[in-house]
């Protein structure tokens, strides 16, 4: 009488895509299982079928070239410890994945998973948006690419089509100055209360040529307000400008309340953390 869910372990990408198309909403994709596991264990979802990707070949690569390519099944821990990433200009990416939860979780959680779950209380999406990273998707109709910023739409919602799988994340060359700050209001292994990513290009004259500031973990998706950064463009970063951008982000960013802090506390933190993230540029 007990209906056990179906467990599918496709070994090729085509097979996985075919399964996903056929099962539609009923099929839940499992990569590392750290997110799905919590949902199932707490009875929040009761899937009829799982599509387990572990046996699909070629989805777990790290390729450091013109751009950094991270396969969907690459674990956080591999990104964190990868010597080729650490020695490249993308070391900030390794740092950021290394801030997630605990080693046990990072050994399991995947790059594709953290994007497809679109859980607001995550670290990597915030940095990936600031770096202009793209996701490569494949479905029955073929492949497409889009910005991570466009891929994550809201709480647990992405642009992933019903028949699509995420293949990899492609991260362009970062600008000179990149920093991700994870603010924890509680335990060291907590999810972020607020995450701030800054990616800035400063020219030889010390003038700011581009600046992206992204705030994460405070609402349904990473938040970016290019107009708030305009005050810095073509200027030398100062404490006053840092302060002003922080104040603007605090005003513009919609914030939510959860166990890690109230909406009001988060607004207050955004001003502080954005300012602090920009202050090193003023040095």
């Amino acid at each position: 009488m007990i209906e056990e869910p179906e467990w599918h372990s496709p070994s090729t990408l085509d097979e996985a895509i075919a399964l996903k198309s056929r099962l539609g909403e009923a099929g839940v994709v499992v990569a590392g299982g750290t997110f799905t596991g919590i949902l199932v264990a707490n009875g929040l979802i009761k899937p009829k079928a799982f599509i387990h990707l572990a046996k699909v070949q070629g989805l777990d690569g790290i390729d450091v070239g013109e751009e950094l390519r991270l396969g969907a099944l690459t674990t956080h821990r591999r990104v964190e410890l990868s010597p080729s990433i650490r020695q490249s200009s993308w070391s900030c990416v390794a740092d950021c994945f290394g801030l997630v939860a605990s080693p046990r979780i990072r050994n399991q959680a995947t790059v594709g998973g953290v994007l497809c779950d679109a859980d607001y209380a995550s670290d990597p999406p915030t940095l990936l948006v600031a770096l202009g990273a793209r996701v490569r998707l494949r479905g029955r109709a073929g492949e497409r690419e889009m910005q991570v910023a466009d891929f994550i739409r809201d709480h647990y919602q992405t642009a992933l089509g019903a028949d699509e799988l995420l293949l990899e994340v492609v991260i362009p060359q970062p600008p000179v100055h990149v920093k991700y700050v994870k603010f924890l209001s509680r335990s060291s292994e907590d999810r972020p209360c607020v995450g701030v990513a800054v990616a800035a290009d400063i020219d030889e004259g010390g003038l700011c040529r581009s600046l992206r500031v992204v705030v994460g973990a405070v609402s349904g998706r990473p938040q970016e307000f290019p107009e708030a950064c305009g005050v810095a463009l073509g200027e030398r970063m100062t404490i006053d400008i840092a302060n002003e951008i922080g104040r603007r982000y605090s005003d513009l960013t919609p914030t939510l309340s959860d166990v890690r802090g109230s909406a009001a506390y988060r607004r207050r933190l955004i001003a502080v953390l954005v300012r602090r993230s920009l202050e090193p540029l003023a040095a």
Partner: protein
Amino acid sequence: MMLDPRITGRIQYAQDQHMPGMLHARILRSPYAHARIVSINTAAVPRDVVCLTRDDVTDLEPLYGPMVKDQPVVARERVLHVGDSVVAVAAPTLREAEAALEAVEVEYEEMTGVFDPVEAAGDSSPVLHESLDYPPDLRPDGRNVCHRFRLQSGLGEDGFAGADVVMEEAFSIAGAAHVPMEPHATLAYWEGGRLHVITGTQTPFNVRRDLAALFRLPEERVRVVVAPMGGSFGAKTFMRLEAVTAALARKSGRPVRAVLTRAEEFVTLNRHPARFRIRLGAKRDGTFVAKSVDAWWDTGAYADCGPSVCTKGGYAAIGPYRIPNVTVDSRCVYTNHPPAGAFRGYAATQGVWASERMTDLMANRLQMDPLELRLQNLLRDGDRFATGEILQDVRFADCLRAAAEMVEWGSDRKNKGLAVMLKGMQTPSRTGVALDIDAGGRVVVRSATTDMGQRPEPTQRALASQALGLPMEDIVVGPNDTDLVPFDTRTTSSRSTFMMSNAIREAAAELRRRIADRLEVASEDLVLDGEGAGVRGTPGRRVALSDLAGLRAEGSFATPGGLDPDTGQGVASSHWHQSAAAAEVTVDSETGVTTIKRLHTSVYAGQVVDRPGAELQNEGSTIFGIGTALLEAIEFADGQVTNGNLSDYEIPSILDVPDFTYDFVEGGQHAHGLGEMAVPVVPAAIGNAVAAAGYRMLDLPMTAERIVDARPAR
């Protein structure tokens, strides 16, 4: 080399126990905080699943509970908290049990709930328990108050007239979860009309007594075997899963095992949320003149040991001070929250928070050094505490000075805080122990001290070794089984090492007498050593211990006492747990994040028996205190726990633990309990340090957000 079975995985925790033909239990729990059960329909449950409802327990005593009989095996007319047990099932597999829960239909009629102890005691709140038989030593008082502990010494409230300065402030502390790594687990079976229960419990004899009463059996027909626990911290005290598991085993005729999920842990037993209003009166020179403690304890839907918590927390909030005029009014109140009970730091954590923050507020007002103010007022040998007891073996000042020194307490006190406490031990209580010589020539310690991870075994072996004069290798600890061990009140309140050391000493003296009788010599001439038994001055007369197999001796120890619930006078504790802490912090003024720079606890340990064990206990206890200080709070919304998982409810990770130090103040005639002495003082010391950094903290936990929202301290 013998590896600890915890490391090799060979240890069989309560949740690892199994028997052939065993069924797995699951419990259907109430989604409502307060509701009438209109109907229960189990027709769709498969036939091979055993289903226990209120109709299956009509022949049992209707209610059980360690202090107030108020808890049914499964809900009868009403459910009283979210998570209250409504129907229990047992099936061949856990999956089938899970599926069976979904086949049960329960219709509820939701009722108004009450979630605040002060409100619950008010006239317009719903009455949670219609009629209860209270034992004579409890003082139910009006609506939903299951016990009111009052204390008056000296002139009481009138004593404030003699004060130059009177301060009054309110404090609160949130409910907390014990979070043992191993959840509650019980296996029960019936054999030959006898109930056998293998369970993770700190209180085997309470469980035996309460099961016998519930099933209307003589106590000899109930056997409780204690499995080693993967942590407890107070969670596994008194009857938890044992009643429902035994009832399922009775109905099914099969062994039944129940193991809770992590989510269920959060609705099974928590720490009491508490609120205090403290008034403290002092002379301008700092001499304490009068104190009043007004406390409210939210015990949830069932009293459990709440009446004892409100008593012990009531007098703990007086603090270890000489105060001539004291009143305490401490109320334990039913609400529609999950039940609250024992929690490491038992009631002192709440009381010390309120009391020691108040001490610093007074020091601030009087512009005195908080250390000097405390030293000026601390109880000393021969002083009378507010309960009327004359204190002996007093070490408060030693502990406090040791702690202060470690943070270089001096003229610069910014960011630094202190706390000192007294905590009672379970009194009255008694303990028995037996020493058996087995066929292998080893002495077997028969003791009901339970193992919840604190390693009682090396302590007991060392105690017996010292008392008998035999090497540790000749001593083993026998299984913890109520059929085999003498009565012991329970393994709580850091009493076991103290109580057992006395009982073992007596049993050892008796065993030596018996061996001497066997050898027909006076016991002072008996020599016991690794070679066996011999006679002083007569080298030829020796027997191996194995030749003495079957010899047995018992020893016991009892501490009389108890407090009058109306006046608070009497004997609160046979001896006092004493400790102090000092902390130095930095606070990020823009984010409220507190960083502990230095933290020291100083604990009166008496004679240390097992030093590595003692050190580990105090380290764990300190980390518990850090969690309570900065992180831990069970959040409720209309009675529903909203953070009942370990992602939303956070305990300290090892990365959150700063370098900290501690010392044991040693001396005296006895081993002192020290398993929970850092828990109450650490939050108060950190709170006083945060206050010294400029933030007036009155509520625990001191989350980063609360700190930035706090009023300036001065």
